[in-house]
């Protein structure tokens, strides 16, 4: 980073840094909850979590918070994630492998299309 001379350069740094700061505060548009109970972790939830974070990063999505939770009681379909967007009922997806996580984010979060073959439950747990 060289010397800063203009307001535009300042603005650029501000926006870049805000992205990081924004991640601290809850996402503005919604959240993805990854179930990280012992069962979920055993089924590979850690890799799922990583995939979720990496995919959001790849697609430059910064208004979705990623949160971990405990076991949702859906052990047989772990790893599970819940996608809760502002103003929509939360959707719980099961058997979320890293590949599936990518698919869910691209389809549900970016295009607004639910991934029906993975849905295990609609609405509040």
């Amino acid at each position, binding site marked *: *980073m*060289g*010397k*800063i*001379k*203009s*307001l535009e350069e*300042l603005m650029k*740094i*501000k926006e*870049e*840094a*805000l*992205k*990081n*700061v924004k*991640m*601290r*505060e*809850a*996402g503005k548009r919604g*959240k993805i*909850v990854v179930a*990280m*109970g012992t069962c979920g*972790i055993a089924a590979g939830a*850690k890799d799922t*979590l*990583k995939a979720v*974070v*990496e995919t*959001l*990063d790849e697609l430059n999505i*910064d208004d979705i*918070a*990623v*949160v*971990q*939770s*405990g*076991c949702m009681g859906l052990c047989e379909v772990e790893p599970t994630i819940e996608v809760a967007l502002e103003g929509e009922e939360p959707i719980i997806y099961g058997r979320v492998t890293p590949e599936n996580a990518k698919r869910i984010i691209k389809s549900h979060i970016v295009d607004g299309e639910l991934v029906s073959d993975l849905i295990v439950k609609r609405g509040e747990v």
Partner: protein
Amino acid sequence: MPLTTNTILICAGGACVSAGEESVKDALERKLKEYNLQDIVKIVETGCMGACSLGPIMVIYPEGVYYQKLTPEVAEKIVEEHILKGRIVKSHLYKGEKGEVIPQPQEEVAFFSRQVKIATRNVGVINPLDIDEYIARDGYFALHKALKEMTPEEVIQVIKDSGLRGRGGAGFPTGLKWEFARKSPGDKKYMICNADEGDPGAFMDRSILEGDPHSIIEAMTIAGYAIGAQKGFVYVRAEYPIAIERLTEALKQAREYGFLGENILGTDFSFDIEIRIGAGAFVCGEETALMHSIEGKRGQPRVKPPFPAQKGLWGNPSNINNVETLSCVPPIIFHGPQWFKQWGTEKSPGTKVFALAGKVKNTGLVEVPMGITLRELIYEIGGGSPTGKKIKAVQTGGPSGGVIPAEYFDTPVDFESLTSLGAIIGSGGMIVLDEDDCMVDVAKFFLEFTVDESCGKCTPCREGTKKMYEILDKITNGEGTEEDLETLEQLAYIIKDSSLCGLGQTAPNPVLSTLKYYREEYLAHVREGKCPAKKCKELISYVIDPEKCVGCTACARVCPVSCISGEVRKVHTIDQEACIRCGSCIEVCRFGAISKVTPAVSVEVEE
């Protein structure tokens, strides 16, 4: 920069570091590595979050959950439970009023929600060692505005219009000070930041330097531009190593970005800042002594005028502002003077940071609008007394200040109203006193401080404060007379009128204000040999109530001088002559059988 799921903000203010923040951070990092989460969970060390009595503390985002009183073990548990499984660790959540568990206190707890943060806007929120985070919160935008859109005169006008007054204690209008330095003839000028915070119990300047060093750099550069200085000095005391370390790093970053050095932001204004480390003499907070110290001379004040604005560092016009004053400057320039004036009172606009200490539940730093009442500050934000004992008074303004009794707690806190009560805002130290605090002893404590810190240059302060201290010592030992009180008062006024600098001129204040409001306590000491607060050791005795004593021997076992005798299951007695009145026995007695009495029980000499 990969995206993160959680960000952990851990408080790395001085108090939390002392309480073991580093070991907590190490435990977090170790545990996160174990679970391979180190890339997606970010740990940020911030400045002081203000709730020092609960440290070490941390906040976990995105939820914004506050954890308090952390240990490495708890940190490991939080990683396993909270970070990994999303289960909140209840045992270490922030506990608000009545010990209720409140995961996200920012909105609900008065300690956080009543605050308005201007000077401490970034402290505890950003990573102080990351200039980008400072910029993200509008940092250096004010500098850009000042250098590229305003003339130095316009900058000064904005500060004048905002009504900002010196937060170091004197309350002198900052804009006016800048104007004097601007108009003072001379081609070499200096901008100095006074970070020699010396009041016992005040630590807001340290916390700002540790938690938001860039705000000081930006403000000094703006001030340098306004007064026409080419060089700045930050005078910090050596007792603030963390502040010095972080400020040094911040200066380096600011130079890299071109906010300091030649042709700042591409303009033809050049300015740089150097840190000067002081040896921690209280008198060096006085501006002329501070300048002598920077010049490498002995830190002693000189007669004013000439004021620093006319003849300062090495005889050149200089402008000196305190840390907290400066940290208010960038937002004022950025948002305009009217924005600042929406808080506070007409004569004291804006906010003030107070350091709450003493007999109050939430000790720490709070920034509140001026004009808030003492009652709100002590009871609503401070949470009142931790023991349920009656709060008697509050001591404000450190060794230059005075006490304010409870009956005046509805007074709004601003420069004028506290002065009219015989106290001062000072740098914002507030020590809450309850019925266990003896006012003579409080006065003695501050006098002892000024005797130690008097530089010795002028006689009234050097000799007079010592004399006053000796009289106070005599009174607390029960040997005082009523004439002593008169002498004390006389001395106080003479020292006030004839001392060279602010240290001596204000040193008698603690004595005068306690004499004004608590003369009866002084009289009880000299007339009856009583200490109403049961604090002065020479005037109290510890006695055992034979009705209540069950003979458990706990007190006898804990007594360091073995002055308690008695058999098991028999009433114990204290040998008054051997007793050193340390109070250990009261602490261990589970039956409430031991109490303090005043005046002291006279020891009967055995035949």
